[in-house]
């Protein structure tokens, strides 16, 4: 027992009370020191800020004098004052702190100035030899001093420092490296080429964002062909180059972009998909389908979005398989939306979508369709079909006058575009004979073989699409829209004229103009992009009102059509097919107004609507009674 007691006593640690008191005193002293340091730091910060403020207030007017001094117009007294100021400032600059503050003043000013004044400021900075201080900073061993030097040289556009700064582009310190890249891209146009050629490090998304911002703000910038870097060894270079290709609409890189869809890096894949969608690269559809299964959900959503904008009826089968597969809700939902967009006639029957599209696919010709080929019925066939259809109609109904009217019509003069307009204009007619004709056209829409063609004869489907937000509506149709008439005018204008033109677009434009305005949102000139944004809102507002009106009209029209369901079967499958390559046009177009170009063309040829459409002259307004009767 005694031994055990001894062992415990000997190993049990003892804490000296004195030691604890020493600790307490040490901590208390350090705490007191902190009080001193805190108040010293506070007064130092406050005083420093105050002193700098006073100094800047003193230097500000002197700098202004220098900037706005004009030797030609200055009086003798002004010139004397100017020389005195020069002497004064030279004296001041002997002090290092004053030099630092002056440099700060100039850098701050440079952010608020532009044009000639800014150039004068840059010149003043160099004249005063402040660039030498900044260049000296590049020799420092402290990373933040070097960074400050680089930032200053960049802000003050000291292009002579370009070569010195390029040495840091692949340096080991991340902060310096990033600042140097920003510097070389800012200082010279070829900076971006040098960077993309030589960079060995990763490029963070923040850095890409900053670099793009710099490029966007460059005036008269002629971007290089970024496709040259699309197969760089550095994955981040590829990604950044791809984003630049997209930003600058360099569609000459299409084949490379299609290859990048299969890139291992998911970010590159995603940007490539966005590119093919934006550049309307229809040949990328198969590649998109191939990578679908191995993609992340985000990429899958992008693929479906791309297929929605690039795809055709034949792609519905693929989208159906997605819809039926074990996918997350967002993907399935997106696929459904895409199917509805590609086959809008089924939009109102989402529940039965699977069956409908299956039937359509079965009926489709096994031979794959060329996306640029649509079936077009020869005009003589149309004439025959119409006449016989009308013969049938006259047998069944009492609408005799329509036969005469149609028989008198010179359908041979119709072109495809005319037909679109005819249908567009016929849609709101409150007249049985015309409605029968619409019904006839409706039957054509539902013939699977004519799937791509049905877009021209799609009247009632607009009731579903027109309910969409204007933006979505534009997205769906933007590939198919013809160029805005303003585009060619815009291309030949200077900035001021462009702004005026944008105002005009805002007042007159429709969806074609909206698409054009969207392309200007990322214009290199800030004022243009800002104006484009405001014009976009104006047009969108107008379009949404039009879309609502259309929806109302469509609703009424389709109700009337349903009164004669037998027409469809009788007139079905009468078309014989020939093929003609044209640009595919989306269904949403059907409801559009005539393109401005067409209006101008008609004006030139002094044609009236009657000349073009004959009995289809539908220059009228629907009465309120029509809506009351048919909408409720």
């Amino acid at each position: 027992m005694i031994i055990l007691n001894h062992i415990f006593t000997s190993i049990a640690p003892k804490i000296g009370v004195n030691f604890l008191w020493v600790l307490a005193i040490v901590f208390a002293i350090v705490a007191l020191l902190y009080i001193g340091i805190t108040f010293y730091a506070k007064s130092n910060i406050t005083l420093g800020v105050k002193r700098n403020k006073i100094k800047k207030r003193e230097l500000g007017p002197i700098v202004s004098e220098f900037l706005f001094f004009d030797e030609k117009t200055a009086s003798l007294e002004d010139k004397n004052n100017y020389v005195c100021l020069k002497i004064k400032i030279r004296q001041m600059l002997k002090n290092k702190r004053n030099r630092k503050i002056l440099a700060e003043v100039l850098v701050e000013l440079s952010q608020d100035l532009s044009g000639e004044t800014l150039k004068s400021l840059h010149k003043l900075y160099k004249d005063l030899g402040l660039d030498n201080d900044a260049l000296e900073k590049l020799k420092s061993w402290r990373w933040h001093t070097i960074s400050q030097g680089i930032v200053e040289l960049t802000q003050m556009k000291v292009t002579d420092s370009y070569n010195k700064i390029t040495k840091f582009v692949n340096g080991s310190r991340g902060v310096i490296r990033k600042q140097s890249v920003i510097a070389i891209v800012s200082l010279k146009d070829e900076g971006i080429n040098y960077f993309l050629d030589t960079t060995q490090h990763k490029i963070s998304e923040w850095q890409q964002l900053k670099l793009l911002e710099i490029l966007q703000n460059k005036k008269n910038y002629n971007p290089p062909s970024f496709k040259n870097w699309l197969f760089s060894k550095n994955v981040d270079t590829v990604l950044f180059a791809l984003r630049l290709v997209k930003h600058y609409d360099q569609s000459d890189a299409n084949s490379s972009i299609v290859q990048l869809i299969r890139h291992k890096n998911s970010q590159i894949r995603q940007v490539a998909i966005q590119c093919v969608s934006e550049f309307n690269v229809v040949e990328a559809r198969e590649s998109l389908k191939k990578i679908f299964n191995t993609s992340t959900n985000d990429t899958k959503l992008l693929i479906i979005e791309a297929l929605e904008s690039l795809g055709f009826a034949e792609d519905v089968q693929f989208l159906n398989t997605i819809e039926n597969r074990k996918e997350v809700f967002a993907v399935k939902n997106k696929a459904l939306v895409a199917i509805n967009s590609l086959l809008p006639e089924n939009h109102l029957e989402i529940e039965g979508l699977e069956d409908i599209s299956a039937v359509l696919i079965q009926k489709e010709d096994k031979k794959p369709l060329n996306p640029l080929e649509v079936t077009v019925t020869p005009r003589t066939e149309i004439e025959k079909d119409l006449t016989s259809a009308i013969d049938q109609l006259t047998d069944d109904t009492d609408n005799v006058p329509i036969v005469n009217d149609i028989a008198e019509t010179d359908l041979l003069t119709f072109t495809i575009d005319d037909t679109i307009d005819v249908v567009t204009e016929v849609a709101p007619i409150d007249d049985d004979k015309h409605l029968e004709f619409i019904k006839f056209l409706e039957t054509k829409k539902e013939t699977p073989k004519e799937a791509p063609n049905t877009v021209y004869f799609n009247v009632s489907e607009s009731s579903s699409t027109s309910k969409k937000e204007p933006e979505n509506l534009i997205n769906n149709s933007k590939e198919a829209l013809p160029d805005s008439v303003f585009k060619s005018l815009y291309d030949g204008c200077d900035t001021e004229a462009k702004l005026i033109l944008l105002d005009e677009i805002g007042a007159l434009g429709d969806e074609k103009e909206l698409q054009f305005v969207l392309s200007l949102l990322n214009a290199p000139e800030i004022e243009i992009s800002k104006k484009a944004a405001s014009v976009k809102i104006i047009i969108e507002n107008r379009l949404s009102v039009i879309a609502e009106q259309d929806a109302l009209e469509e609703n009424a029209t389709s109700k009337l059509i349903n009164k004669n369901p037998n027409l469809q079967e009788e007139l079905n499958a009468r078309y014989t097919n020939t093929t003609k390559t044209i640009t595919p046009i989306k269904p949403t177009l059907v409801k559009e107004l005539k393109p401005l170009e067409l209006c101008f063309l008609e004006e030139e040829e002094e044609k009236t609507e009657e000349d073009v459409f004959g009995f289809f002259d539908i220059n009228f307004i629907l009465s309120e009674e029509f809506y009351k009767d048919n909408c409720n």
Partner: protein
Amino acid sequence: MFQSDFFTIIVDYINIIFLMFTIVLFSGYTVMGYLATKHTLHYRRKNSFGDLSKVMASPLAPSITIIAPAYNEGMNIVENVRSLLSLNYVDYEVMVVNDGSKDDTLEKMIAAYDLVKIEQKIDPNWQSKPIRGIYKSKQKAFHKLTVIDKENGGKSDALNTGMQLSNNRYVGCIDVDCLLLPDALLHVVKSFFQRSGKRVIAVGGVIRVANSCIIDGGELEEVRLPKNWLAKFQLLEYTRSFILGRMAWGSIDSLLIISGAFGFFDREIALAAGGYDTNTVGEDMEIVFRMRRYMHERDLPYTVEYIPDPLCWTEVPEEVKIFINQRDRWSRGNLETLTKHKDMFFNPKYGRLGMLSYPYWFFYEWLAPLLEFFGFLSIILFYYLGILNFQFFIAITAAVFSFSVMFSFFAIFWEVYAYNQYKTKDILVLMLFAILEPFVFHPLVTFSAVRGNYKKLFKIKSGWGTITRKGFSKAT
């Protein structure tokens, strides 16, 4: 004789355990101070140049959804939402989730923002309380606003709903009554985007105390020291915690908690990890644990970023009862999260997370208040038994007290150095409160923690409790 000696030895051993515990704590705090200092200096130098505002409209800037759950916030909801809608960023959405409020929260929003019910497809498999409606404003000016009305399911459920309905790459989960500074989203985007080798899965930031501050039109006009004594103590605590603690953990990429008042997440990872846990009241800590585990177990390079800039201002409780309820909930949440992820405890598979962060949270965030409480009971017992060594007790108390005051002063110094937002007089008051804290505020915190653990241990039902907000002071 033997019994007496043996008892002395036991007491000595207890002393040594407590001393070791304290030494490790002191050393830990010292290291934290060092890391925080280093990181703060680095951050300030790195961010002394560059203008964030220029990039806010960049085509490469990501879209963000700010999810703000609201429950009985009728008093301030309109003002708070307006403040959220006026941030300096182009591509963002404010999604207010009305979590079955019993007051007029929804009605006020509908009236103020001209809201109409819209149709939107919802994943039928998504587990959350039923959504009663989704609202958008008819006015273009409020196009960024989406209001979701759902049945009450708690904060986590509301946040999960928002996360699910968002289509954006990043989601911010905030308290609707928080004030975000206009540039907050720009800082967040920078934090998400500045890394090139690792995926930033979450971004957290400093929470500042807004009590008594002057706020006008959703903007912070003047920073003032809180008038209320409890709020002053909390300000001191927040300063220590955010400027030193989280800064240090953030600097070694071991941050385990992102405050529920200001947390931004990579939506894809947050959803893949399962979103917020609806069975815990410590959901803000739990989701970070889970997201980190998700990335760790898949061996994916990732990080959690911490922004030291004062971007989010919140109102802290000014009443003792509400304060105790809040801390009680925090300690329950802490325990629930630690229990749920107990397999990480000293598990080298999780690297620093398992070997450093988790043990720290276990010993010094969860266990420390309990030890303190039992230590206090022991002192009373020893005094009653007449075996209390007064000399030793006073010496060790003095050492611990002077260390805690020193550490608080250090935090105040960094507050001045980093932000310099308070007047000299206010700094003096804060220092005085740092001296009083161990006697006034700390016992309250310890009591709340013990109560929370007691409730959890004995399964006493307790939810979130209610916090009555007074609203920010308006500029006159």
